[in-house]
Each structure stands twice: as structure tokens, then as C-alpha cells.
């Protein structure tokens, strides 16, 4: 609040006269009366005297208030106010082709934009008059700015867009400039997907419509044999909305294009493309780009970085009546070492004839009466003669006594806290010691883990079972490592080279400006504008991508839970991870999602590598919403103070003459 005549405010100090006068009046004033004896007859009532004093104090207050109000009114009180001119809010709905993109629910981006605008309409209308304009190849006013929300809502619902063509950016720029030049406070909001919104004209607030921002997504990547047995990278593509026309590219680390294939997809179509695999050990980028100049796509395309890696593997046979699930789990985890496709399970009574075909034989709960044929064995709660070990029944509540040396199979593992409820009594015989058989882990029943090589038989023996009721070993994180070490130890001379695998998970610098796909409009100051041709990080912008070390849970009843790393699983069916089934001969796994069956590769494929679900942040160039015009003005408050003075005066009058009788 300010005053037109602030020099009058010191007069407020004159109000002190009121209490001073009161204090002066407290001294009894001498008054002559004609007949005092009559006054002496009038009774004195103390209550009335007190009330009179209170009334007098109130009177002082009232008088000071009245005086203050009059002085303030005289000083010309002004309230600094501002006249807010109701802004004109122009909602621009993009009806160009990119708005045809559909999300997982099948809704187009335009429908999402319309729903968002409908949701915001109440709030916008409360701030000003809302107008509705469709922008595409041209601009069409659907609803002129006005306060009638129902009319705007009806106009919004009545829009039937064709969602084709490209945004007339030059026309939009001119139109926006003209509206902003009209001088009226105007807020222009562009409801659009990121493709065109990134380059919204200055003064326009881009309301990004979230959802898939890909033209097309890489849904699966696998490496396998081609028609003539050559290593081939197979990539599944899917158009995410609208028609997609572009190219599938395979680049190496230098950015050189190894493969370039045209892709033409209708909305929602999928296709599988193949390209010759690069030599093992090289990094490649599988990438899709829309054709330059085509308006029917979004700003971003998908890309996945992959590594073609060599792989060695051992063939493995599991001999058991009921193979422990944890063991199978561990075998699958070690698929860098174990060729899961070549693994078999053999019955205990007929495994010997084919044992020579396998690099490692795992015996589970088998008690062999004859010595084992030469080979490499992992004996799990199994017995056989001729191993330099003496098996003497079972004991309960077994304690751990000593872990001897690290050995080849317990590298870095500490099993002294292993809990065993039952174990065989195993002793290393003298002949076994001579042959090099030794106990690695010793318990109260003897050797719990032993290893040795005798008479052409290399073995690692566990004196206990892997069932959870017998031991906690299979539940320990150390168990897959133990299995890995066992196979490393037993199969160290038996490895062979398998076809390379695609290993995803590591980013690599690529001298290609992926931030500027062919058809992406140039945005001043946007990402990639500076040093666009220089070395720049991979799509995840430097985020470390964990190596795809697949840790598959235990298979149950022949099924394996889906590896969480399979990127396209959540892409294809969000919320339903599906169930893995046994791999087909080509090494692909069948994924069951609801009623759908899909064969997918279980190559090292990371969800993080796909940009399909990425929500791109609004670009830094998104303009702030224009501030509504505010006109400062002064409001005269003199009458308020005068009214206040009058009000207090009336109150004082009422107190003295009506409400407070003394």
C-alpha cells in the first residue's frame, strides 16, 4: 500500500493526544451544582463505575481508530494492484502423420493428445479463453477462443483427423508470429509428439505426447546359421505406428555400414531381416532409420549394440532319475562353457554306452557297482568303486571340519558355513592318496568334497545330495561358480569352438551422429548440434550397460522362466513375462505369452539396448509459456478508510448510547 500524500502520515502521532486527554480527564473536573444534597442521596454502584471505565477505554480506542482512519484517508491510500488481462490460450493439436503412432493399447498419439487436452481443458479455461486449432499440412481453426468450455469440449470431440502429411512448419511459424504480434496475452500450446514438437516455434509451449517414440523397434536379435550355414544376424523389426519406410543398417565400430537393407512396414507389421554376421569378436550396431524427408515417422529410430563373441563349450550328460533342478540351472548358467543344446539326460541303467560322446558326465544319486569307464565325472551323492574312496553309509547332522586348499574347484569359495543334514561317510583310501585323490572339504563324516584322477577317470565327488532338505549347497550363490569351476577343471582339455554368439551389453563409441537421424529436423542448440560429426556416446549416452551374464532361474518341469535380460519380452507383452520352453533344434526358445507362441533367440540381448520404450525428454529449447500481460494500476482506498472511520464512529455511538448503558 502506498500513499499519495505520505507527508501527512506523521500526523498519526497526533493521535497520542487522545490518551493524553483521557489521562487529563481522569482528574475530576470541578462542576458547581445547585443542590449537592440531592446528589448525595444518589447511590453509587461500583459495577457501573467499572463498566464506565471500560467504556471510556473503548472510547479512547475508537477515537484513535477514527482519527487514524481519517488521517490515512487524508493521506490518499493506494493499493498497488495489477490488471491481469485474461490470456488467450490457443491449443494446437498436431494432426500430421506422426500423430498416427499407436501405443500398446492401440491408441494413436492424436487420441492421447486429445485426451490430454480434454483433461487440461478445465484448468486452461479457468485461466483464459481457449481456442482450438488443428495443425498439419495447414492450419484450421476448430473453435475460436472463448470461455464456453462445453463448446470447446464438443469441438474437440468432433475432430476426425486424417493424420497424414507433414507439419507445415513454415506456415506454423508465420501463424504463431502473427498471433504473438497481436499484443494480446497469448499462450500457444502445441500438443504433438516429439518429432515435430522439438522444433516448436519460439513462443510456443510444446506439450509432448508421451508414448512410443520409435518409428520402428528392434524386437529381437539372434545369431544363427543362414540358409547356407553361414553366420547370420537375424533382427526382428516392428513398425510402431503408421507406415514405416526406411533402412536396416548394420555398422561396425568404425561406423562403416556392413549391411544396408530397405524396410517397408505398415502399422504394426513385423519383419525379420538377416545380415551376414561380422567376424567373432567385433562390435556391431543394428540400427533402423527412416528415409530422409518422409513425414510418416517419428524422430527416433531404434538401435542395438551387439558383440559377436566366440564361445567354447563342453558337451554334458546328466545321469539321474530325478535331476536336481538347481544343478540344471547351474549348467545353463554356465553356457559359455557348456553347450546346452548338446546336453542330454541319460537314465542311470543305460548311460555307459554313450558316455564317451560327452565331455563331462554328471552322476546324480547313482550307485554304480562297477568302476567308471575312463572319462570326466561329476559325482553328486553317487558312488562307484575304483575311485580311491571308501563309502561307508550315511550320517546325519554333519559338521564342517576343514576346507583344505583352494584347489581347482573351490577357487575363492568358502564352504565352511555349509549346512548339511545328511551326507555319506567317505574316506580317501591309501591307494587313492597315492593316485592323487584328495579331500577338498572335510566334515565329521569324512571327505565331503573330493577330487582326483585315477585310472583314466577324472572326477569331482560330492558326498551329499543337492536337494534342499539335505544340503544348502545348491542354494548358495557359490554353487554355479562351483559347477563352472568343476567343468573348467574337468573339461580343460576338451573344449571346442562353437558358433559365435551375439553379446550385447557394452556400448562403444561410434563416429556417427545417431542423434540426427535422416529425417530429423535440425534444432538449434539441440543435442548433437555441436560436434555432431564427432565421436559421441552410444544411444544410452554413456550409461554403463551391464554385460549380459544370464542368470536364469531354475527350470521346473521342463520349463525355464524367461531370462530377464531378453529385451523384447517386455516389449512384446508388457506385464507378462511369459514362459520359456525347451529350445528348438536351431537353438531358439519358445516363448509362450498368453495364447501366443513365439520363437525367440536367447542371445545376450539387453532391454536397455533397445530405445523402443524410451521416453525422450523435452528438448532444452522448449519455450517457456508466455507470461500473461499484467497492467499495473493503483486502486484508491480512501473510501475504505472513510467507511472504516464511519463504522467505528457508529460503533462508538452504539457503545455509548445503545449497547452499553452506564
Amino acid at each position, binding site marked *: 500500500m502506498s500513499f499519495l500524500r505520505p507527508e501527512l502520515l506523521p500526523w498519526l502521532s497526533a493521535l497520542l493526544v487522545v490518551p493524553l486527554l483521557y489521562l487529563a480527564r481522569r482528574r475530576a473536573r470541578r462542576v*458547581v451544582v*445547585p443542590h449537592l444534597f440531592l446528589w448525595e442521596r444518589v447511590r453509587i454502584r461500583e459495577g457501573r463505575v467499572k463498566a464506565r471505565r471500560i467504556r471510556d477505554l473503548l472510547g479512547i480506542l475508537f477515537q484513535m481508530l477514527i482519527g487514524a482512519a481519517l488521517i490515512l484517508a487524508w493521506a490518499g491510500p493506494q493499493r498497488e494492484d495489477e490488471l491481469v488481462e485474461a490470456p488467450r490460450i490457443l491449443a494446437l493439436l498436431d494432426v500430421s502423420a506422426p500423430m498416427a503412432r499407436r501405443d500398446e493399447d492401440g491408441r494413436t498419439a492424436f487420441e492421447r493428445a486429445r485426451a490430454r487436452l480434454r483433461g487440461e481443458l478445465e484448468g486452461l479455461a479457468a485461466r483464459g479463453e481457449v481456442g482450438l486449432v488443428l495443425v498439419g499440412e495447414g492450419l484450421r481453426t476448430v473453435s475460436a477462443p472463448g470461455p464456453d468450455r462445453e463448446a470447446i469440449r464438443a469441438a474437440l470431440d468432433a475432430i476426425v483427423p486424417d493424420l497424414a502429411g507433414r507439419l507445415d512448419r513454415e506456415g506454423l511459424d508465420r501463424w504463431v508470429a502473427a498471433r504473438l504480434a497481436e499484443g494480446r496475452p497469448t499462450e500457444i500450446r502445441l500438443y504433438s509428439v516429439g518429432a515435430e514438437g522439438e522444433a516448436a516455434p519460439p513462443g510456443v509451449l510444446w506439450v509432448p505426447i508421451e508414448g512410443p517414440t520409435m518409428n520402428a523397434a528392434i524386437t529381437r536379435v539372434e545369431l544363427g546359421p543362414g540358409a547356407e550355414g553361414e553366420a547370420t544376424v537375424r533382427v526382428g523389426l516392428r513398425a510402431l505406428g503408421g507406415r514405416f519406410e526406411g533402412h536396416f543398417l548394420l555398422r561396425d565400430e568404425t561406423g562403416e555400414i556392413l549391411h544396408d537393407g530397405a524396410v517397408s512396414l505398415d502399422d504394426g507389421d513385423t519383419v525379420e531381416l538377416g545380415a551376414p554376421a561380422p567376424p567373432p569378436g567385433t562390435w556391431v550396431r543394428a540400427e533402423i532409420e527412416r528415409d530422409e524427408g518422409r513425414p510418416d515417422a517419428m524422430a527416433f529410430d531404434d538401435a542395438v549394440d551387439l558383440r559377436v563373441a566366440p564361445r567354447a563349450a563342453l558337451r554334458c550328460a546328466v545321469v539321474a532319475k530325478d535331476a536336481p533342478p538347481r544343478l540344471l540351472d547351474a549348467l545353463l548358467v554356465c553356457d559359455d562353457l557348456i553347450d546346452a543344446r548338446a546336453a542330454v539326460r541319460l537314465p542311470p541303467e543305460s548311460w555307459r554306452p554313450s558316455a564317451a560322446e560327452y565331455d563331462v558326465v554328471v552322476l546324480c544319486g547313482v550307485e554304480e557297482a562297477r568302476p567308471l569307464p575312463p572319462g570326466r565325472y561329476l559325482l553328486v551323492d553317487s558312488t562307484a568303486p575304483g575311485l580311491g574312496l571308501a563309502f561307508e553309509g550315511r550320517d546325519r547332522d554333519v559338521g564342517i571340519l576343514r576346507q583344505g586348499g583352494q584347489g581347482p574347484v573351490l577357487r575363492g569359495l568358502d564352504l565352511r558355513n555349509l549346512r548339511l543334514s545328511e551326507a555319506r561317510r567317505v574316506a580317501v583310501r591309501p591307494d587313492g592318496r597315492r593316485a592323487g585323490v584328495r579331500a577338498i572339504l572335510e566334515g565329521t563324516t569324512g571327505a565331503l568334497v573330493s577330487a582326483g584322477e585315477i585310472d583314466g577317470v577324472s572326477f569331482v565327488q560330492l558326498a551329499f545330495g543337492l536337494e534342499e532338505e539335505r544340503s544348502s549347497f545348491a542354494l548358495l550363490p557359490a554353487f554355479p561358480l562351483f559347477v563352472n569351476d568343476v567343468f573348467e577343471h574337468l573339461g580343460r582339455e576338451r573344449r571346442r569352438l562353437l558358433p559365435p554368439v551375439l553379446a550385447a551389453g557394452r556400448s562403444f563409441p561410434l563416429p556417427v551422429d545417431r542423434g540426427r537421424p535422416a529425417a530429423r529436423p535440425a534444432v538449434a542448440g539441440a543435442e548433437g548440434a555441436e560436434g555432431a560429426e564427432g565421436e559421441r556416446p552410444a544411444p544410452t549416452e554413456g550409461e554403463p550397460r551391464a554385460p549380459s551374464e544370464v542368470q536364469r532361474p531354475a527350470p521346473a518341469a521342463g520349463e525355464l522362466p524367461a531370462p530377464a535380460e531378453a529385451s523384447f519380452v517386455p516389449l512384446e507383452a508388457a506385464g507378462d513375462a511369459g514362459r520359456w520352453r525347451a529350445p528348438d533344434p536351431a537353438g531358439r526358445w519358445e516363448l509362450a505369452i498368453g495364447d501366443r507362441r513365439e520363437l525367440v533367440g536367447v542371445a545376450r540381448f539387453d532391454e536397455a539396448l533397445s530405445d523402443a520404450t524410451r521416453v525422450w525428454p523435452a528438448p532444452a529449447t522448449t519455450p517457456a509459456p508466455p507470461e500473461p500481460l499484467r497492467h499495473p494500476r493503483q486502486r484508491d482506498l480512501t473510501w475504505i478508510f472513510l467507511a472504516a472511520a464511519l463504522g467505528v464512529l457508529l460503533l462508538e455511538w452504539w457503545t455509548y448510547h445503545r449497547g452499553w448503558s452506564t
Partner: protein
Amino acid sequence: MTGIAGEGLLDPAFMARLERIELIARRLQTGEARGDVTTRRRGPGSLFREHKNYSQGDDVRFVDWNVYSRLGELLVKQFDADENLDLTLYVDASGSMDFGQRRKLDFALRIAAIVGYIGLARQASVRLLFLPRRAGEDGGAIFFGKRRVQPFLTALDARREARGGTDFLREFRAAAGSRRGRGLAIVISDFFSETGYEKGLDFLLHAGYRVGAVQVLDVLDARPDLDGRLRLADLESPRTLERIVTRRMLDEYEAEVRRWCEGLARFCGRRGIAQVSLDTAWDFDRVLRSLLAGGGFAR
């Protein structure tokens, strides 16, 4: 219309008003030798008062033969006796009379002028006394005849000062002395005396006077314009009283004054004293009307 208290006693306008009183007085006058003042006593006079049944010893000259001829009853006419009157005017000039929106003493002096003028015009002997007496005023001044009007008014006008207290009994006793009272005594006062008025008026009655009491009241007597913390100082004594005067207190004070005045009226009524209360705000005509009609002692 303004009250008469503001008019000078010797002003021509006031004199003209007194002349008018003389006309009224003349109309009232019927006797010649019997005196100019009609009294309330029955006797030979000029003003018919009433009939009474004839009884033995009544003067047959006053038998109303007209009535006898019509009704056959012997009725004797009675008249108010005309007699020469001694009029004694007591004018209260105590301190309490120096008060009022219109000063009560000024008003009282004009009342005295009116009554005294009537008396002088009707050949009464007018004796003027002020209360309280000053030194040398024991007997008061006596005026007779209309020619003494001017000195009478001058004497009134000379007493402008109101001072001291009023003790009616002492003053009346001192004024009457040992003489037997005769005629009419009119006391013009506010009758607000701490010692009371009863004994004084009784004394006058017992001294043989016919007594009239003219109470002079001002609006401020009953409703003084007082408010707040006050030290009340008495006009007739050095006493003071400190009070926080509130509206309620004023109400009670007004009731007290009213009771005092009602007490005076009751007392006069019981004693046969003609009493009238006059307000200082009244004009000449209303005052005269009240004196003649309400008081009755000035006929």
C-alpha cells in the same frame, strides 16, 4: 418564543406586558370601597361566588329572590370578600438560584415583578423580601400604589446577585418578627433547601398569612449536563463531592429531584398552599396563565 428570564425588568417590552396584566386586573376588580383585591374569603364583595341555604341570621338582602320565585327555595348569594391586601413577596436569591440554562434568579425576579405589579395595580401593599437577607434588609421594602411600580421594579432589578444558602424558617421568622401576619405571602424559590421548606411554610401559615409557593425550575435542575469524573461543588456551601457521573446516575438524580418536587406539591396541597411550578423556559403568557389559573393566588 423566548422565556421571560432574558427580558430586562425595566425594558419597555416587559413594561408593556405588565400593562396588559393591569387590564386583566381591572376586569377582575368589582368592589370600590371594599378594596381592590378579591380574596377567597366569603363576605361582602362584588364577585358572586355561590348560593347557600338561608339560615337564621343571614342578611335578607342577599336572598336570591329570583331563585325563590322559580324554585320556592330560599337561597342566599355569597360573594368573595373584597378587601385591601398586604402582599409579601419572598424572592429566593440564594446560590442555587444562580443556576440554570436560563438563570433561575432572573426568572424569579420577573415572576415577582408580575405578581407585584398586579398587587400594586390593585392597591395592595407589596412588601419585597429577598432570601437570604442581607444586612439591613430585615423588614424589606414596602410599596403601595401603582405609582410605586417603577421603584418596585428598580428594587427587584437591584438584586442580581444570588449567593448563600436558604433557611426558610429562619428567614421567614426574621422577616415576620413578632407581627401578626396579614394578607398573602408568596414565596418564589426553587425550594431546594437542605434544611427543607416545610417548617418555613408552616411558620407563615401559623403567622396568619395565606401562602403561595411558586417553584422556579430549570431544565438543568432535573437533568444537568454532566458526564464523567467530576468534583461537584455546592453553590450554597463549600462542600464538594467527587463522583463518576453516568447516565444511570443521572437517571437516579432526576428521580430524586422529581420526588423532591412531588413532595413539595403534596405538602402544599395538604396545607392549602397555592403552589405552582414554573419552568424558566416558559414565555410570559404561559407564566401568567399558570400563575392565574394554576396558582389562584394572583386573582
